[in-house]
């Protein structure tokens, strides 16, 4: 297939369940206001844990999106995905009927899947034996079930799959959905990422890996990407979903267009299980490939929604990678990490950050990096510190990197006919 055969792909709807708001509007307003969604853990007794803070989703009621029976047999990570997907479809005013069901697909990534149900069932197994384990355990925990259940709840019968590339999963899902629409395999894709991993076992493991912030007495300021005093990421939870639609299909039904998706890049460090390769060559290549895919030169980029986890390793490495990929333009580009507000949603982060990036393109407004008081010496670019910035955003990129060395970059631009 030559490039001229490829379809144009636009974003026509979005939905979000996040630590700073459970609708697209609440999320976006929270981002622009620099709102922190981080607080003490309330889901379990974290008193013995090194990290006792997280970005929990507050006030989420699955019954707004599904009936009680479905809610009970659905893990929280899939509830988030179904809910954000329904929001996104409603936002796009896209109705799935018998006529178009096979032309609408779902691609929703997650880092770990149904960890909550697995931990609960493990406890039942140990206390009551194997014959008391729920028949719903397996279908609730498997990582693909967010995509499968979203199809059941929306009727989308087209291409359906799930990226499981740790913290890059949501972006991989959006990128893979982009390719599907671009190559004509579906007219629209419901795509994004979801995660609900604020659980005791998860916190034990991530803390042992020295990945989490232990700024337990000051949760609002714990996620501080690019700052000298950062000490690890703060886990968040939630889901972000986009409707990617083939341009002619969107135009024919008079859909509102937030922006156009134009590039997707992915690489692997092939270096270490958790640490990025020093210098960020893999991340740089991901950005360069995405820009090449989009046919855009580095100097045209207005905004980078960074992976920006607030870990000691990520932030200077990503900064170096941006310098490699964008060259001299790196010092002119606006960069922000919205994880400073939401925390790190692991596989969900690519979803909500894809949403944030599209909203920046649509609204010419860049969310800030909050808690950036004194930048790390190696972090010397423009991270839009502490205040959102009204600025034309013609072209924007979103980066996501995951354990396993996965590097993913998405590119969006203003839609112009």
């Amino acid at each position, binding site marked *: 297939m030559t490039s001229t055969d490829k379809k144009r792909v636009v974003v026509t709807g979005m939905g979000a369940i996040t630590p700073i708001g459970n609708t697209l509007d609440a999320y976006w307003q929270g981002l622009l206001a620099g709102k922190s969604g981080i607080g003490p853990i309330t889901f379990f007794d974290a008193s013995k844990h090194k990290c006792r803070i997280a970005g929990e989703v507050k006030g989420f009621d699955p019954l707004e999106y599904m009936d009680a*029976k479905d809610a*009970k*047999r659905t893990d929280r990570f899939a509830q988030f995905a179904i809910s954000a997907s329904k929001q996104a479809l409603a936002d796009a005013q896209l109705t799935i009927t018998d006529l178009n069901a096979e032309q609408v697909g779902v691609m929703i990534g997650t880092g770990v899947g149904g960890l909550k149900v697995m931990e609960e069932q493990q406890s039942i197994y140990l206390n009551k034996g194997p014959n*008391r384990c729920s*028949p*719903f355990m397996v279908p609730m925990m498997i990582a693909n079930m967010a995509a499968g259940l979203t199809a059941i709840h929306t009727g989308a019968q087209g291409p359906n799959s799930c990226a499981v590339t740790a913290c890059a999963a949501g972006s991989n899902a959006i990128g893979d959905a982009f390719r599907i629409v671009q190559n004509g395999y579906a007219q629209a894709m419901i795509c994004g990422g979801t995660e609900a991993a604020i659980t005791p076992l998860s916190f034990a493991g991530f803390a042992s890996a020295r990945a989490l912030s232990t700024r337990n007495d000051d949760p609002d300021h714990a996620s501080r990407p690019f700052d000298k005093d950062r000490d690890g990421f703060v886990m968040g939870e939630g889901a972000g979903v986009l409707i990617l639609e083939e341009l002619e299909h969107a135009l024919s039904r008079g859909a509102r267009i937030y922006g156009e998706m134009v590039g997707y890049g992915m690489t692997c460090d092939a270096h270490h299980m958790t640490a990025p390769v020093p210098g960020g060559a893999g991340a740089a290549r991901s950005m360069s490939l995405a820009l090449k895919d989009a046919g855009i030169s580095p100097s045209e980029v207005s905004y980078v929604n960074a992976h920006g986890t607030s870990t000691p390793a990520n932030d200077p490495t990503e900064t170096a990678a941006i310098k490699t990929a964008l060259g001299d333009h790196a010092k002119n580009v606006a960069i922000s990490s919205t994880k400073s507000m939401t925390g790190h949603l692991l596989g969900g982060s690519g979803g909500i950050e894809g949403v944030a990036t599209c909203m920046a393109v649509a609204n010419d407004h860049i969310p800030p990096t909050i808690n950036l008081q004194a930048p790390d010496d190696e972090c010397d670019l423009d991270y839009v510190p502490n205040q959102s910035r009204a600025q034309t955003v013609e072209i924007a990129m979103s980066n996501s990197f995951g354990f396993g060395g996965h590097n993913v970059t998405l590119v969006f631009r203003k839609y112009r006919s």
Partner: protein
Amino acid sequence: MADDILGKVQGIVSEQLGVDVAEVKPEASFANDLGADSLDTVELVMALEEEFDIEIPDEAAESIGTVQAAVDFIKAKSAA
């Protein structure tokens, strides 16, 4: 005692299948009236085993199609 068992079964069925307790009539069929699928049925049987401290073998479970049938089975087991 019998009413007690019925009441407990109705409560468990209502909770497990997410239906209003008023719908859980003795003659109600789990599959046809209360929307239970195969996985629901397995989970429901487990909950009854747990509540009444009995074992319901798979063959017996298959023959328990209604609320009343579950009550009768539990009564017979408890009397034994």
